């Protein structure tokens, strides 16, 4: 029989009532209950502003000792010289989506639940059984190829950019963009996994070969890889969210997949791809705001426009080549409610409208 141990004397801190609540006393600054080191955009600061502004310091604002670590070949911190674009006040940019941790997780969790419910329903209803072979092949090859592009942009474009922007507001908006892309790419991959486990003829590994070798996808892969090789963060953001997403991303997602899937008996794909569309809509919002700020900058607006014109001259032809190369996939589904020409026209029109909004001239290549 074991001897029961003597119970150890419990020890715990004593609660003391201190009356340390707001308003308990009046004294200088006793009512100073707003962050006072920045000017909010409106009269009252938003939660987003309060948790984002000035968290990344700036020697031009309050950082009196400067950056205390440098790179071997240049200054540390977030040098404004890391892009050729110029702003008289980078801090004027605020994310119209007002992303901070609560919005990031609420919004993305809602999407996760939507996608999850959709996929569960698809299995329960044996939705894939009704797809015709041509559509199965279309999803297997093309949606399969596209998810690589989304993943590449997530990891090597947006994740990369968020190290380099000169303010916390820019970098956080881009970090959220990266999270969107990563979630969407993974959702497409897991959808692919579901299909490969369903009792339908679907090759879950075909996407790898298509992305690497199929002629219609090589110019798209080339643009994505060339994007990841860009060193200027602002050019990278412009080329991706303004040019590539409009002429290739939206062309494929908005003007093709979202238009034809239902006509081919598929209500699952548009639900999932629609989440990527929703993401891009939000991401375009912040991107548009940033570049509008730069083109309307009183001091640097005109030089920025010229710079963006150069960037358009580089990236529009590449993206149009990628778009043209995709033409054959418009013929692959059994039901073809839209033509490549009409889809490309629609994408170009939206792109022109976006450029107009930014105060930029449409490049001549768009008219060819």
């Amino acid at each position, binding site marked *: 029989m074991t001897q029961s141990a003597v119970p150890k004397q419990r020890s715990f801190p004593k609660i003391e009532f201190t009356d340390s609540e707001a308003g308990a006393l009046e*004294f200088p600054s006793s009512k100073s209950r707003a962050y006072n080191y920045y000017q909010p955009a409106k009269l009252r600061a938003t939660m987003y502003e309060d948790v984002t502004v000035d968290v990344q310091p700036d020697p031009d604002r309050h950082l009196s000792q400067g950056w205390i670590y440098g790179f071997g070949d240049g200054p540390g911190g977030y040098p404004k010289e890391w892009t050729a674009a110029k702003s008289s006040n980078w801090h004027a940019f605020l994310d119209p989506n007002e992303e901070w941790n609560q919005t990031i997780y609420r919004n993305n969790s809602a999407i996760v639940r939507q996608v999850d419910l959709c996929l569960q329903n698809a299995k329960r209803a044996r939705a894939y059984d009704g797809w015709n072979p041509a559509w199965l092949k279309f999803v297997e090859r093309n949606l399969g190829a596209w998810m690589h592009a989304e993943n590449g942009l997530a990891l090597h474009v947006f994740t990369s950019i968020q190290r380099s922007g000169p303010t916390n507001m820019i970098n956080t908006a881009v970090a959220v963009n990266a999270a969107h892309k990563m979630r969407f790419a993974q959702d497409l991959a897991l959808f692919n996994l579901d299909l490969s486990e369903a009792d339908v003829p679907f090759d879950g590994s075909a996407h790898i070969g298509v992305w690497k070798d199929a002629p219609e996808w090589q110019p798209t892969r080339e643009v994505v890889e060339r994007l990841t090789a860009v060193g200027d963060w602002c050019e990278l953001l412009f080329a991706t969210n303004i040019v590539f997403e409009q002429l290739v991303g939206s062309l494929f997602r908005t003007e093709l997949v979202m238009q034809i899937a239902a006509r081919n008996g598929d209500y699952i794909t548009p639900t999932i791809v629609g989440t990527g569309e929703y993401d891009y809509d939000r991401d375009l919002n912040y991107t548009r705001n940033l570049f509008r700020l730069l083109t309307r900058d009183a001091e640097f607006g005109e030089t920025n426009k010229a710079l963006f014109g150069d960037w358009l001259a580089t990236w529009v032809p590449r993206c149009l080549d990628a778009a043209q190369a995709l033409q054959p996939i418009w013929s692959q589904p059994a039901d073809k409610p839209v033509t490549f020409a009409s889809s490309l026209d629609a994408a170009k029109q939206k792109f022109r409208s976006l450029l107009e909004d930014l105060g930029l001239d449409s490049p001549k290549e768009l008219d060819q």
Partner: protein
Amino acid sequence: MSRQSLTKAHAKITELSWEPTFATPATRFGTDYTFERAPKKDPLKQIMRSYFPMEEEKDNRVYGAMDGAIRGNMFRQVQQRWLEWQKLFLSIIPFPEISAARAMPMAIDAVPNPEIHNGLAVQMIDEVRHSTIQMNLKKLYMNNYIDPAGFDMTEKAFANNYAGTIGRQFGEGFITGDAITAANIYLTVVAETAFTNTLFVAMPDEAAANGDYLLPTVVHSVQSDESRHISNGYSILLMALADERNRPLLERDLRYAWWNNHCVVDAAIGTFIEYGTKDRRKDRESYAEMWRRWIYDDYYRSYLLPLEKYGLTIPHDLVEEAWNRITNKGYVHEVARFFATGWPVNYWRIDAMTDTDFEWFEHKYPGWYSKYGKWWENYNRLAYPGRNKPIAFEEVGYQYPHRCWTCMVPALIREDMVTEKVDDQWRTYCSETCYWTDAVAFRSEYEGRPTPNMGRLTGFREWETLHHNKDLADIVADLGYVRDDGKTLIGQPHLDLDDPKKMWTLDDVRGNTFMSPNVLLNQMSDAEREAHVAAYKANGTKAAG
């Protein structure tokens, strides 16, 4: 999601990466490490489908607790002594968090392993979460705590304060210099794996003991993400270890990162825990005891020591010296006294120590009273304006210290101070290791091999030089550490808010000229400097035993 389906899902996600053939990603941030021969190591598996709902649930718990704290009038029972130090801590910590997010692409660029890229990108989002959730906690304190001054100017104060700059290393060190040194060894292998234990596990204990259960709520939620980050770091470390050429760099970086983390984090968190608490139960752990448990046993013995089986020389001497500084050389007590000496240029108030505190310190750190007791009695005696200057300008047997050029905590263990001419300037260092960091490690060549990617120590590193030969009142006004009546200082050497006559104003501190020790040192002749340094070192608090 079941483990089997998670494994399958993760395997599927790895199919998303590919080897580029048209162009390779730009190397924006270089490294002198090489991974050509590295076998790929997997970090913990995480997919976004399960990640977002998991984090949302964690968030919901945090915000529920915040609502509950306000409804339950938590601030009726919060100790002001504790909350005042949060003005400093919470001004610093969101920057290291967001810097960790910004560091992730550096590691992605450097390490050729898609499995790890995924883990690092998820960590990026975690870090955005941590930074903004901490900013939100601070806002709640500002709105509900009796004295919002200091919280209200938090990010500005962080950016222009001498203590903020010390803390900023724990952030800038993540995002600058060699990508692996910064984003892997300094950030993940040392800061996250070792020192978040004192930041996010030990310190919240003390918060709760002082009536604040929101800090534990928020930072424990933060800490629950760290295991994935630690796994990311460990995977990269193992990959780096696979190539013999990396070994000298790993050993260099472990020495630098360990020592700098010790200097910075132990200074801050040690002070918050030991001098910010009202809980003086004899059986509550001191910072030294917490450090022994969380850093020495959990990190050094369980994590670092096993790395020896890979042939890596780990910095035993520096671990032991950190322990020696904390237990025998009074490191934390010296830092606390330094912070309290500088109270006019703080944006938080520092409470005096009482007999109860003295008794506790003497119990935990025998000999404490003979070294520090008299000074704290003077601090108490000189707490109110009218009859005396701020304590830094009164004769209380304390010489304002030289700043360490590297870690920027002053050379407080005076007998250990190193004085050397580096880059044509006389600089002081708190220790041989900080001197080595500046003179040897952060250079473009290391042990005869080029290290062009290693970072540099830059900036106006000595805060005092920026304010040399200025009147204290002008310094405080320039920093903006003045309350909304335009004259009362935010920092005060006591917690009395009930009597305006007890609160120091700009007029009360005017007439005191502040001199930079480093400027003065560089103005001395060789003989003067040698005598000065000898006297400074002799005035040191000798190690016990």
